[in-house]
């Protein structure tokens, strides 16, 4: 089963900082609300990224790189999470955070 979500409609038009300490709508909150449950239940998740004001790097890193630190693999993300955006550099940035977190997890 596949679920489609839009960050702007289902989470917030104003994605915040890294953790709740930075204020509302943080990357950690997004990860725990959508990414981790989908990966835990092996559910396919399509995420529309474009209907927000934008993203800080800390939000994206904590949301997507943080998934690796929670014990999931890059292959899990590639299999179950689909990123949708008209901006290829946004998807490249997220993939970069995932790849970097994955590399670090393998070093440890």
């Amino acid at each position, binding site marked *: 089963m596949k679920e489609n979500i839009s960050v702007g409609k289902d989470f917030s038009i104003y994605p915040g*900082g890294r953790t709740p300490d930075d204020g509302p709508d943080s990357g950690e909150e997004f990860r725990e609300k959508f990414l981790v449950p989908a990966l835990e239940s092996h559910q396919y998740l399509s995420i529309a990224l474009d209907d927000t004001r934008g*993203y*800080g790097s800390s939000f994206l890193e904590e949301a997507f790189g943080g998934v690796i630190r929670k014990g999931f693999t890059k292959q899990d993300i590639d299999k179950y999470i689909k990123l949708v955006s008209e901006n290829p550099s946004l998807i490249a940035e997220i993939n970069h955070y995932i790849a970097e977190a994955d590399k670090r997890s393998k070093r440890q």
Partner: protein
Amino acid sequence: MISNHKGYRKRHRYTSMFFMNSSHIEHTVSCSKNHTKKLIVFPASFSLIKNNRSDVIKCINKIEELVINLNGFHGKIYLDFTKVRVVYPDAMILLYAEMSNIHNAYKNIRFKIINKSNSKVDQILQQLGMSKWCHHKAKVNKTIIRKDVKYWRSCSGVHVIHKDYDKIVEQDGILGSIADATSKQLYGACIEATKNASRHAYIENLRNIKIASDKASWWCFSEIKDKELTVVVCDLGVTIPYTLPKRREKLFKKLISLGKKTDADLIAGAIENPLSRSGEEYRGNGLPKIAELAKQQQGSMIILSRCGVVGISKQGRMKKRNFKLPINGTIVSWRIPIVSGVYQ
């Protein structure tokens, strides 16, 4: 700068004395045993990069000194803007942040603004809400608000900018007048600048004045002028050059070994070598994100921190400059073109 404010002295009929303090002059008026009135006179050009930078900083530092000295007394500080002719957002936001902090941390300090009615400065102070803090009834004719003042916007906060972003760019349709990709880059840059301010800027208080970072840790302005939107974020924290040797010793030593010792060198080094003070490898993308908008040639950017200034032009070229007198904080400013709409 005003050395003898005769009209003011005559009007108030107080006994006056004057004393010089480097290049700017503070005028002290004693009116009774427990009441003193202090006058700070601002220079003609209100900028931290162009002329009069040191005068502006001395005036702001003097306010801080007076607040410390007056705290607990029935003091009033007079801010004289009658000489100011040119106002730049970088200097105005630093004054705004200092005044806001004093307003939050020292309830007994009172300010009084001296200015020409309906002047540009009066309109800006009114537009930003500073007149209200100072109980200054600006005689601003709302029907003739200057075009270059009308679009000044401000907000402040403790956490990241979040919904308040719309306060500075959404009003009057500004958001629709800048390219969508640029607007999203700007939002991300503002998130990182405000996050850096709230997380990292107040790790120590190096100043004598109280910093009420629980009330506001950053301040933000926007201005539209000459078909460009300028957004400025300011904090009153420890500055990037101060933090670098403490938190990123390796990078600091590397920069020093390469002869990069100035504040501007250290700021540029922090932009080009991301890794935050937390030491966790996955953190520290904030400063590069702040600079990305300019690096991708969607606009220009300037960072002022302590004595250093680092600018990245629309063409992506980096320039560095150092001044003698430091600012107590960090100011990040982006300037992006307006591509459509009524502001063109």
